[in-house]
């Protein structure tokens, strides 16, 4: 039983990390109709900006908390700039051309990272007090994942839910996922809305980057590693559906952790097989609504 629980908790930890990234991807797709390849790059910028903040600006592990507040905002600014500078001009084109445009941004952003931060692996320390581990059912868990990663994931989840369902702006955004033209006809500034949603998506990506940074290496190329995983999660859950993203992330995380237990080596393969099965049987994803034409 305890083994099972340990793997379960592991899975949930993985799920939370990937959820933070995939939720932004899904949100942007839902509203803008763009599958944003560059979302992984925003995640990477979150990690690298945190690295700079902690190593070069404040020189102290305590500054993780400042980073947690500031860095996602910086990444959101970067996202807004990308939307205003590039994506805005191409909404009318085929969605796949938009996908290609964001892929061009991936290429550009990844080399800019190498030019600024170099090609080496970097790392940041965990915030003081969260370096150790806690024992749960006699198994040691890093206290960082239990006390920071999980709460952050849950808070973001609830926050997004409340924002989208209980606030006026959230309702507008949800309406935009249903019918963009109608929203414009009702007098909403759609351009601003798109920029805002893209910035929010970038904020989530940056937050994911900040939270993931102390748990592993920070390196150029982490953008490509994460984006495919995020694609899997949103496709399984349903492109554009936030509840689906939660479910997709949980399935992804649990398949990873239990897969390592039962079929080591092949767990990644199973995830892709699941993605293919979902796409074949239910293209809109487990919790997605109809496949919108043109996407």
């Amino acid at each position, binding site marked *: 039983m305890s083994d099972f629980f340990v793997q379960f908790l592991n899975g949930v930890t993985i799920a939370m990390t990937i959820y933070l990234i995939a939720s932004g991807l899904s949100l942007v797709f839902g509203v803008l109709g763009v599958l944003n390849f560059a979302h992984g790059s925003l995640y990477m910028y979150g990690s690298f900006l945190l690295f700079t903040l902690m190593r070069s600006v404040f020189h102290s592990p305590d500054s993780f908390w400042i980073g947690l507040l500031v860095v996602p905002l910086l990444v959101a600014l970067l996202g807004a700039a990308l939307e205003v500078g590039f994506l805005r*001009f191409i909404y009318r*084109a085929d969605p796949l051309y938009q996908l290609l445009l964001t892929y061009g941004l991936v*290429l550009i*952003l990844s*080399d800019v990272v190498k*030019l600024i931060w170099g090609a080496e692996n970097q790392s940041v320390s965990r915030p003081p007090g969260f370096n150790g581990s806690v024992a749960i059912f006699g198994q040691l868990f890093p206290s960082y994942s239990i006390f920071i990663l999980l709460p952050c994931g849950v808070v973001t989840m609830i926050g997004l839910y409340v924002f989208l369902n209980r606030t006026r702006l959230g309702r507008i955004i949800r309406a935009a996922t249903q019918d963009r033209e109608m929203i414009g006809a009702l007098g909403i500034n759609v351009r601003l809305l798109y920029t805002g949603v893209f910035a929010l998506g970038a904020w989530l990506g940056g937050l994911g980057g900040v939270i993931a940074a102390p748990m592993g290496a920070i390196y150029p190329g982490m953008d490509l590693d994460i984006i495919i995983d995020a*694609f899997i999660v949103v*496709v399984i859950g349903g492109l554009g559906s936030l509840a689906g993203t939660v479910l997709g992330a949980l399935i992804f995380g649990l398949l990873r952790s239990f897969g390592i237990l039962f079929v080591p080596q092949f767990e990644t393969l199973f995830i892709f097989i699941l993605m293919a099965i979902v*796409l074949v049987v239910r293209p809109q994803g487990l919790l997605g609504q109809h496949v919108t034409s*043109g996407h």
Partner: protein
Amino acid sequence: MNTSQTTLTVPRQVTVSTRAAGGDKTTWVFVAALVLLYWVPEAILYMGWAKFWITLLAEVFIWGLFAVAFNLLMGYTGMISFGQAAYLGIGGYTAGLLLKKISGFPFALGLTAAPVSGALAALIIGYFCIRLTHTYFAMLTLAFSMIVYYTVFKWYDFTGGDNGLIGIPVPHWVQDPTFANYYKFVLVVTLVGVYLLWRIVNSPFGKTLTAIRENPDRASFVGINVKRYQLYAFIVAGAFSGLAGALFMINERSVYPELIFWTRSTQVLLMSILGGVYTFFGPIVGAFMLQLMDADITKDYPQIWQLFLGSMLVLILYGLPGGIMGFIQARDIASTDDAATRVRKAMGEFNRKFWYFFAAMLFFTGFFRILQAPDTWVTTVLLTAAQAAVGVLLCAWMLRQLNTFAPVWRIVFLLFPLLPLGLHIALSTPLSGLMIIVLWAVFIYSYLWQDEIREAFSQPHRAALATTPGA
């Protein structure tokens, strides 16, 4: 054509003019290409250039075949696959495994097995993929290619896993020290492959695919089984991708899982976009451009290659959605225009695009020279400025003469690119710059040898047209 429902911002005339130019003439282009390119290794060895160019060119040919096969899906049928490398890998691994595991397995049979296995895999995978469209299609092809990738990557006993499959026996005649034989072998196989694809896209089958791309609903109304044709296109693309995979294998005498990784699928996508997806030869041009620029840049500046590539992609998507070949072939002529208007419009376009090519050539040669020799950037800037000054005067004067429609100027213009070409070979500028000049020549030929323009040049009284110089 005007009622096309797809929203790609690409001039549709492109496809029309490609078709119009088809027929037997292109067969001779293939023969000419074979004869000309066949002796390139000898030329390179004779000139004492680096042998590395021989293998690089062979690699470009393979990429070209792969890109044309991919473009059968993207450009002709309108399905953007993000997992085309799967069939490349399956072809390469099939040929490699057969040759390595069964001793004495005939080389020719191993090579034939590659397209067959590629087609079979495409049949199975395509059966599921063609049910989806757009982003979902792209995601499913991606998923399947990753399934293939991880299967190969993890199945150590059979495929060698991430160590790859090394030391695959290939006949002695393809592994000569200068790679000249290998080059010729690749040249012949890729040219035959591309020629077959050319015949396919110009057959009724190919036209049906284009009809499906333009409007799947209408295609099905006239009785075309859309899904079945899409599956056929998928299989054909898979077969030729498999063949390209086997060729990649022969070069290294080994295969690695990287052959199947998704970034390779995006690379072939980039080539197609760069060269132009709505033209048959566009992807080959894209393959040349990408590989030559790669060779020019990554030699000294590997850290900015992706930055450069990404910027090119963004520029192409905004500025030239039809790619380079699309830019060359696009005409803004309406079907209602009379002959005089057509000529005037075409000449206006010619003038405008001529200057674009001139600017692109200056940029490319200047940029790549600075990259190659950053210390002498002052000289390069001065040289480029001088080139620009002389070029602007010369080209402006020449274009004015051209607009008088004196027949001799058409010939002068066709020979004109020889001047910058010779200059660049003499100054030993990077290959990417030469590439632009070659494209410039292609552009000049494709405009000035159109029927209407030829007629205008041959009839003196049309000189009245010349009253509209410039764009």
